[in-house]
C-alpha cells in the first residue's frame, strides 16, 4: 500500500504543490538586472501572491536568482551560495548576460554562459527583463516543479566533475571548503 505507484503519485503531487507555491528567493544582485527585483516584489507587481518571498540566507532559500552579468570574481561566491542551498534547489538566469554574455560577450572578466558553471532551470531573456517577464519566468518554473522536472541539484551532484573542471578554468586560485550538501 505504502509503496505502490499511485500512492507515491499522490505524495509527489502534494509535495510538488507545496514546493511550487512557496518559493524562497535568494536574489543574488550580480548585474544591473537586480534593479527589477524590487519592482517585482513591491506593490505594483506583487510577486508574493504567487508565494514568492525573499530569503535572507542560502540555507533557507529554494531559488537562486542570478540577475545579470557575472564577473569572474563573483562566480566563486555564486558557487559557494549555490552549494550551501538545500535541495531541491532551482536557479533562474536573468537577462541576456546569463544566456550568452549579452552585451558583455567579449569582456575579459565576465563569464558568458551560466549553464557551464551551475545548472539553470529557467532563463528569462531581455536586457533587462521587465517584471512581467520575471513573473512569467517564475510561473514557468512553477510548472516545471509541478511536473517534477526541476531537479537540478541532483544533476549538479551527478555531474560535479564536469562543473568543477569548468569552474576551475575560470577561478584560478581555488581555495574553497568542501560542503556536505
Amino acid at each position, binding site marked *: 500500500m505504502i509503496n505502490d505507484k499511485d500512492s507515491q503519485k499522490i505524495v509527489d503531487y502534494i509535495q510538488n504543490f*507545496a514546493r511550487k507555491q512557496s518559493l524562497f528567493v535568494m536574489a543574488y544582485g550580480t548585474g544591473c538586472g537586480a534593479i527589477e527585483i524590487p519592482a517585482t516584489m513591491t506593490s505594483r507587481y506583487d510577486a508574493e501572491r504567487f508565494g514568492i518571498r525573499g530569503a*535572507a*540566507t542560502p540555507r533557507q532559500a529554494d531559488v537562486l536568482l542570478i540577475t545579470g552579468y557575472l564577473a569572474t570574481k563573483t562566480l566563486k561566491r555564486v558557487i559557494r551560495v549555490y552549494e550551501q542551498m*538545500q*535541495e*531541491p534547489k532551482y536557479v533562474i538566469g536573468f537577462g541576456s548576460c546569463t544566456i550568452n554574455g549579452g552585451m558583455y560577450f567579449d569582456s575579459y572578466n565576465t563569464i558568458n554562459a551560466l549553464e557551464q558553471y551551475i545548472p539553470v532551470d529557467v532563463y528569462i531573456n531581455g536586457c533587462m527583463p521587465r517584471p512581467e517577464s520575471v513573473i512569467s519566468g517564475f510561473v514557468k518554473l512553477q510548472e516545471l516543479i509541478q511536473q517534477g522536472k526541476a531537479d537540478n541539484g541532483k544533476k549538479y551532484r551527478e555531474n560535479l566533475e564536469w562543473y568543477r573542471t569548468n569552474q576551475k578554468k575560470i577561478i584560478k586560485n581555488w581555495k574553497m571548503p568542501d560542503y556536505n*550538501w
Partner: protein
Amino acid sequence: MEDLGLKIFGAILTTILGFTVGMTYGGIVRKLTARVQNRYGPPFYQNFLDLLKLQVKKTNIAHGFMGHMAPVWIIIAAVTVLLFIPILNGNLWFPNMSFHGDLIFLLYMMVFGSLGMALGAGQSGNPNSAIGVSRGLSQMVGFEIPFVLSLVALMIQYETTSVQELTQIQHETGVWNAISNPFAFLAALFASLGMFRYSPFDIVGAPAELASGPVSEFGGKYLGTMMSGGAIFAFIKLTLYVHLFLGGAGNPDNTGIIATLLGLGVLLIKTFTLYMVPVFYGWINPRYRTEQAIQYFWRWPTALGIIGVIWAVYS
C-alpha cells in the same frame, strides 16, 4: 483511567488548536500587511504551504548537536507551556495542567524556547546569529521588566499566582483586570510589542541587516520546526494575556458542546484583537536600534508598571 484518557485527548486537541490558530494568524497578518502596502498578498494559508515545503526538503543540514536540538527544544518548550495555560476557563475539554502551573513558573518556561534558539544559533558559528542572539536577549531584558511588573501588580492585587484563579475572579466579579488595574494592563500591552517582534522591535530578525539573525544557518526541516514553535508561542502569549487581563474565555458553569464552541469563538475574537495591537504599531514604524528599543521599554512602560504595582497595593 477515563480521566487520564480525557486529559491526553485534551492535550492533543490543545496542541492542534494552538498550532493551527498561530499559523493562521501569521498568514492573516501577511495578507493584511500586503493590503496595507497596496498589494494583493499571499493567501491566508500561505504559512502552511511554507511549512509543508520546508518539511519536504530533500536535504537538511545541521551544524552539530545543539544545532540539531534547538528546533526540538523550541517545540518542546512551546507545547509544554501551552499545556500549562488554561485555554478555556474550567472547561472539560481543555483541562490541561493549568491548575498546577502558576505565573512564576510560566515566566521561567517562556524563556526556555529562546534559550534553545540561542544555544542552537551559537553552535552554527555564523556571526549574524551571534549578533542576533545578543540583540534578542538584550531586548528581552528590556520588555521583561514592564511585563513582570504588571504580573506582580496582579499577584499583589488578588493575592494569588494562579492563572486560573485570576480568570475565575474576573468571571465572578464581571470586571476585567484591564479595567480594575489599567496601568498594569498598559504596561503589559507595551511589553507585548517587544514580545511579538514586529517593527519597530524586529531587531532580532532584521532580514536586511542581520540576514534573519539567529535562524540564518537553519534551513529545511529545522526552520520549519522553529516556525511551528513560534506559531504556538504566539498563541500562548495571546491566550495568557486574554486570561490575565481581558476576562478570559469560556464559562466554567456550562461545559456543553455549544458553550465550548462559543467560548472558543470568544477566545479567537479576543486574541485576534489583541494581536492586532503590535501588528498595527508595526505597520507605521521603522526599526529601532537595540539601545533605543531597551530605552523605550525602560521609560514609559516601566513607569506604568510601577504605577500599576502601587495601584494594586492601595486599591
